[in-house]
């Protein structure tokens, strides 16, 4: 089993951003990191196959897999019709008979075409029938440039809550590589949600293959006053808010959820017990969001630790409009997070 030789590495407190070349460490973009992870997976294990429309076509899937066909063979890098439902089922059938398939959705909106296979089949299979189901479903979230209602969605909440399906949203280049390698080498299906806007982010990425834990949140910054939980691109706003508030006397503890399902409640509870305040920044609208679940669990488990009512921050609509002035109003941004935190700390300043 090729994967057992890899050394598992925890990244519970890894810096989100690292300046280029700092400490002489190797810096890659998020896009380069996922590409490297996919190539290494194909290299390490001949049972890894990748499937999707445009999977080996330059410019498609944001150039994260183009060229792999020449390197690893067209039989393992499989161009497919636009048939998301069948492809998901094919991945399942291949996985239960010994392969490790990765399927690709350039836009996560198209996941819904395959929802029957993902929920009714992939996520329940192991629980009904037993055995391993090592399927990785990559899907990329987009935003901006007038992408509109059907190309700007972020579907983590629709797929969270099925014990047979892990849902992860890596934020850093380090995580996107390590979590991908953990996902593809595991026994369970994983919905792997990347964000297009993270593709240019740079950070430390070791060259050799490594595993990042799929189920733990990462504390990106320790603090004592307020716990701010983010996911995927929402972390960037938290990062900016944290930077703006440094020196303000408000000490944020910033948690990157990383794993949407199952959520790392130990990490969040421990933090809330310390800070007594909780803000969750959703990559999506707040209604029925991941924050709703996390907050419910906090209320169940450590309600008495809360000093202030909890706060959710998210998109203003689920139907993202295309026009630039309309679209920019949808997303919350660092200022809204700062205002909420100041309000929560009793230091809200009316402008």
């Amino acid at each position, binding site marked *: 089993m090729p994967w057992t030789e890899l050394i598992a590495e925890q990244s519970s407190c890894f810096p989100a951003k690292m300046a280029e070349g700092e400490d002489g460490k190797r810096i890659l973009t998020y896009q380069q990191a996922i590409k490297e992870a996919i190539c290494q997976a194909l290299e390490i294990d001949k049972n890894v*196959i990748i499937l999707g429309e445009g999977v080996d076509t330059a410019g498609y899937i944001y150039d994260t897999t183009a060229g792999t066909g020449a390197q690893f063979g067209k*039989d*393992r890098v*499989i161009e*497919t*019709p636009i*048939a998301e*439902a*069948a*492809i*998901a*089922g*094919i*991945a*399942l*059938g*291949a*996985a*239960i*008979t*010994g*392969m490790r*398939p990765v399927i690709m959705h350039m836009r996560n909106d198209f996941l819904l075409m395959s929802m*029957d*296979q993902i929920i*009714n*089949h992939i996520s329940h*299979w192991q*629980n*009904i*029938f*037993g*055995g391993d189901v090592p399927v990785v479903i990559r899907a990329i979230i987009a935003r901006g440039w007038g992408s509109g209602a059907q190309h700007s969605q972020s579907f983590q909440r629709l797929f969270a809550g099925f014990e047979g399906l892990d849902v992860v949203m890596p934020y850093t280049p380090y995580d996107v590589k390590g979590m991908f390698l953990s996902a593809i080498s595991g026994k369970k299906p994983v919905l792997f949600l990347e964000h297009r806007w993270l593709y240019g982010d740079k950070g430390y990425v070791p060259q050799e293959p490594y595993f990042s834990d799929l189920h733990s949140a990462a504390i990106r910054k320790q603090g004592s006053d307020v716990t701010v939980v983010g996911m995927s691109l929402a972390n960037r706003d938290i990062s900016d808010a944290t930077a703006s508030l440094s020196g303000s006397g408000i000490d944020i503890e910033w948690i990157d959820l990383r794993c949407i399902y199952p959520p790392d409640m130990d990490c969040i509870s421990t933090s809330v017990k310390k800070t007594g305040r909780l803000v969750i920044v959703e990559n999506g609208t707040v209604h029925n969001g991941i924050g709703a679940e996390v907050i419910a669990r906090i209320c169940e488990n450590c309600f008495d630790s809360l000093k202030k009512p909890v706060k959710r921050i998210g998109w203003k609509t689920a139907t993202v409009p295309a026009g630039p002035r309309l679209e920019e109003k949808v997303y919350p941004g660092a200022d809204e997070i700062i205002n909420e935190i100041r309000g929560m700390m009793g230091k809200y300043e009316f402008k």
Partner: protein
Amino acid sequence: MDIEKIYRIYDTAVKIRLIEEAIITEYPQKEIRTPVHLCVGQEGIAAGVTFNLSREDYIVSNHRCHGHCIAKGLSLEGFFSELYGKAGGVSRGRGGSMHLVDMKNGILGTSAIVAGGIPIAAGAALSLKLRGCRNIVAVYFGDGAVDEGIFWETINIASLKKLPILFVMEDNQYASQTHVSIRHSYEDICKIISGFSIPVYKLDGNDAVEVAEISGKAIANIRRGDGPAFLYCRTYRWLGHVGESDDSHTGYRSDEDVRYWKGLCPIKRLEERLNCFDPNNAGARINEIRNGWNRMIEKALIAAKEMQYALD
């Protein structure tokens, strides 16, 4: 076909029939608490196709899966235990009637979502092809499944990638209680499938020997690397869509229709053939086969009833 081969086909077909009849007897006790979709009247297809499959070949089936899985070698005790929700069920009591599995015998699983198993079978076929195996996948589905988009997506991909898969369409003419004429704008699905460059074999699904002979040819071609084949089998469901009794009284089909198709019983036709070609021995051997399976079924039923319920 050699008479011993016909006995083998009969052995499988009648085993399925007797198991389904045992369920019909037991079901009113309400101890089997899982919706059963019985295949009485359709046994010839599973028996005929499986005749050409090895243990290492795969099958994927649907909600009406008993016959396909039993033919492929599913353990009787494991099967009945699954129906009773017992710990020794083939799916550890988590699946019920519509979710049977036995990886050792190449039964990959069954889906209760119409057409849901079809792409999964294609994925297993892809896996066989990539691993350089000579094995094939047979996927069973009904005339309802071809109404689903995922069926057509999979047909296209299977042909495109030359996957080693046998599509077995069991046209029993009804999706639940809706007749095919209400659902299909086309007369002949075989013509459409041919358009995907897939060889199509149209046959009488109630003639198990014909199914065995023709699927044998199709499977040999698939094993050789020719890509998928499509078996269209016309048949009829004697009982209701779900449960142990006939639901014709609701008026969606006529008693004459049911009587007509019962006249074309696949088991009876196999027995007639055996009596015709082996008149001196057939009667005794048929009895022997039936009695043998009845004893096994009784034993398996007792074991399943006595077993602990699945608790975790």
